[in-house]
């Protein structure tokens, strides 16, 4: 059941991501929050480009995606999706956290 839901959710996000990409002409990256962790915890994006990150919060609890490095602060309610636009970024590592679950929710964007 859980696997089924996750697969469906991922498909939904991918579909949403594709339509966003068509609209905005920006690369779209998808990150899922599950059990207060980011999956994947490490994403690679092209440098010097606007990039859209779609974050799907699969947990029932809200999370705040926060990164001063990426200049992002965004609350994502439980079981919902958020669109975050970042960049253009100089090549480098840009850590981000889930502020409500800082101990486990950690990730990094690598611009290259």
């Amino acid at each position, binding site marked *: 059941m859980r696997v089924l839901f996750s697969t469906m959710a991922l498909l939904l996000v991918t579909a949403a991501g594709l339509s*966003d990409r068509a609209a905005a002409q920006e690369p779209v990256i998808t990150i899922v929050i599950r059990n207060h962790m980011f999956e994947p915890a490490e994403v690679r994006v092209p440098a010097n480009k606007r990039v859209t990150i779609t974050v799907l919060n699969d947990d029932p609890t809200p999370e705040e995606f926060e990164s*001063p490095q990426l200049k992002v602060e*965004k609350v994502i309610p439980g079981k919902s999706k958020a669109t975050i636009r970042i960049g253009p970024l100089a090549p480098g590592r840009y850590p981000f956290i889930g502020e*409500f679950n800082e101990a486990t929710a950690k990730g990094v964007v690598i611009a290259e």
Partner: protein
Amino acid sequence: MLGALVIVFREVIEAGLIIGIVLAASREIPGNKRFVTLGVAAGIAGSMVVAIFAGAISDAFAGAGQELFNAGVLGTAVVMLTWHNVWMARHSREIVTHMQDVGAAVSAGKRPLAALGIVVGLAVLREGSEVVLFLYGVLASGTTGASVLTGGLLGILGGVAFSALTYYGLLAIPLRHIFSVTAILIALLAAGMAAQAVQYLYSAGIVTVLSQQLWDTSWLLSQNSLIGRVLHTLIGYTDRPTELQLIVYLVTLVVMVALTRVARPAHPARATA
């Protein structure tokens, strides 16, 4: 528990600093505490509404609803703070010299108090909705509820104590200086908010220019540290500002100073007589 305390504490102090400054700035206007209390109450009620509709807000405007909402809240606060400073530049002398004439002061002071009440309400709304969402999440997950809730409540108390400290610290300033000191604090507060607002507009894709990062002082003072957060709220400290943020910050300050200069009574000698 400690984690919850820290999270709630830092949200509450952000609103608390603003409340402390507003209370001090309006200390000679009768009825200021009532307006600030109203602002806090409205802000708390509003933050629950915002938390309930967080999903809908987030989804609005092609996923940029939350950014636009924050930019709108901050932008409104900037306008209110500017208007307050202009009003005070025009009337502060009368308020100090005619303090006995309470009736006149009350009617004259109603309008800037309303503006400051709105600023307080918006500050509580922004930070409060995050606290509500966080605590709701804790309740929803069930397992560690009680200790985290205790932490959250302690965080709120700590934040309130911190704002009280700000207020009483500012009260220590002699009366003849308090208007100029709070005017400067409010100008910096507004400039910082304007710079934040424009960054939200950038995130929403409304503004797309001048995104170059100017410098990185996170090695010196991280924006995530307690002092960094306090300075972020107070003077808009940003460890990695963009060109756009710096320009908006400076323009807000210049506009604020220019408007208060224009508003100042032409014959200060007569006003003191």
